[in-house]
């Protein structure tokens, strides 16, 4: 079983739609959960950073972590064409320790 699993997509939705991105994981020791956005030929850009279970909201983005199910989600409201990118879920055991990434979901927002 892979440590972090993420549907690679691609996912294509119309502008203004709500986008739901998800990851599952197998290592119950993970405590820190992240979502990064990656544009073509660029580095991962941090979007959301959460500790343990619960929800976190930042503007149009909401991150959810359910440690009991080993499942994390990212919701994007009022999606824009500029949101078109690859979204990487990521997690770590401790704040300073190595990050384990998902394979990334390629998202396209149609104008």
């Amino acid at each position, binding site marked *: 079983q892979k440590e972090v699993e993420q549907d690679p997509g691609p996912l294509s939705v119309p502008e203004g739609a709500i986008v739901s991105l998800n990851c599952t994981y197998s290592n119950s020791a993970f405590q820190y959960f992240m979502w990064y956005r990656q544009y073509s030929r660029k580095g991962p850009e*941090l979007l959301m950073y959460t500790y343990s279970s619960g929800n976190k909201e930042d503007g149009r983005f909401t991150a959810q972590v359910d440690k009991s199910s080993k499942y994390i989600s990212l919701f994007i409201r009022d999606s824009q064409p500029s949101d078109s990118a690859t979204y990487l879920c990521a997690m770590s055991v401790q704040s300073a320790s190595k990050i384990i990434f998902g394979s990334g979901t390629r998202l396209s927002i149609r104008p």
Partner: protein
Amino acid sequence: EPEVTQTPSHQVTQMGQEVILRCVPISNHLYFYWYRQILGQKVEFLVSFYNNEISEKSEIFDDQFSVERPDGSNFTLKIRSTKLEDSAMYFCASRDRGLGNQPQHFGDGTRLSIL
């Protein structure tokens, strides 16, 4: 906003040659990392560095690889004798000193092409 900067953006090297990838982490950050991403694959951890020593390394980070913080601002990754399979994007990341919840911030990477 402070950012991690990496040079060069693209490096082309002959197989067997040594290559040094350079990174300038965010000022006052104390934790440093290298990751790589082979085309079409996941971002993979290589090594973490804190207090002038390696704190963790992956199986990928074998004797061909080394890291160094030669001065107060640079962090380098050296590959001693490059192989074709070393072709990848290499990302540097840094993290603040805080004991609390501090994320890692990534640079835009160096694309390494081994011929």
